């Protein structure tokens, strides 16, 4: 039986796809067979972040409509044989996704996969609702910024009322906070909401803080999930997050400003 994780945020541009790609790769590298699904029908981008954009033949909607089998549409990652990508359709309209269709695909994937990551589109329309509907866990990606925090809270409301678990009165979806684009320096100056501020407002279990990092852009430029850049702070933050999610005790990092030594201060970095 697979565990279904939705990566959601409400607001766009906070790092959902970056997070989906990183988490999926992290779980797969741990040896778990993992599928990552792009729910952003009409605006697919996960393929680009994963670096498999030229290998897309069939997509999510083709499988729902019976025009291709799941095995034909799944793209096997070239770096990790436990990771598979199901791209979104680029041409169809959003109504192409149906609850029955999505449910059927997730059920079939659940037979052989351990984790299924649903990369939600921004907004609260059909794609976003269906990405979260079947979820067991929700990774709420939030930036330390007013609009993002408000939208995250809105998504929490929807998670607790419009998911399958909510409708069936099952155990609630487990919700985790992933605070991304965090800048400890600006937090210290009082220019940015701190982890504690965001926690006070959203009262979520903090899975990790991802620092604002140049490595994220570099990774997406080359189509490499940032978690594979083991030297980067963002990559390490995602590795920590995967380990914490799997139950390991990992102390939080990247919350406080990195104290530079004398040499660091002299030569900068």
């Amino acid at each position, binding site marked *: 039986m697979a565990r279904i994780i939705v990566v959601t945020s409400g607001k766009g541009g906070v790092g959902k796809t970056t997070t989906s790609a990183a988490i999926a790769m992290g779980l797969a590298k741990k040896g778990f067979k993992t599928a990552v699904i792009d729910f952003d029908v009409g605006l697919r981008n996960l393929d680009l972040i994963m670096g498999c954009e030229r290998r897309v033949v069939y997509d999510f909607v083709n499988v729902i409509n019976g025009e291709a089998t799941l095995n034909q549409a799944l793209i096997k990652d070239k770096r990790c044989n436990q990771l598979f990508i199901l791209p979104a359709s680029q041409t169809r309209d959003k109504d192409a996704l149906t609850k029955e269709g999505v449910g059927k695909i997730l059920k079939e994937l659940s037979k052989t996969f351990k984790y299924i990551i649903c990369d939600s589109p921004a907004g609260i329309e059909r794609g976003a609702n269906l990405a979260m509907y079947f979820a067991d866990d929700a990774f709420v990606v939030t930036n330390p910024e*007013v609009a993002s925090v408000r939208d995250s809270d809105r998504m929490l409301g929807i998670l607790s009322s419009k998911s399958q678990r909510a409708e069936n009165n099952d155990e609630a979806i487990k919700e985790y906070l992933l605070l991304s684009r965090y800048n400890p320096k600006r937090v210290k100056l009082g220019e940015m*909401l701190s982890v504690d*501020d965001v926690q*006070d407002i959203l009262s979520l279990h903090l899975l990790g803080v991802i620092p604002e990092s140049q490595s994220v852009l570099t990774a997406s430029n080359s189509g490499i999930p940032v978690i594979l850049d083991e030297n980067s702070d963002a990559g390490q933050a995602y590795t920590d997050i995967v380990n914490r999610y799997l139950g390991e005790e990992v102390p939080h990092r990247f919350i406080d400003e990195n104290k530079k030594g004398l040499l660091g201060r002299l030569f900068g970095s």
Partner: protein
Amino acid sequence: MSLLDYFKSTKPNSAKVAKERLQILVAHERRSRHQPSYLPELQKELLAVIQKYIKVDQDAISVNFDSDDEQETLELNIILPDEPQT
């Protein structure tokens, strides 16, 4: 004002402002999340009825719904104009 205060006051803490604004907004939005869906419609119709008799503004009426374990309360608040209309 001491010299220290002067330096402090030149740096407005915008994160603090952000947190305060968010706390108020989020609390408000969470309350309205649990309200029955007919509330906006009810508010509109009540306003129409009241406006038939009294000249009040659109925002002079508020309908609030609160619930706890014990009971549910529907609160209707109308601000009447200062001078009675004839």
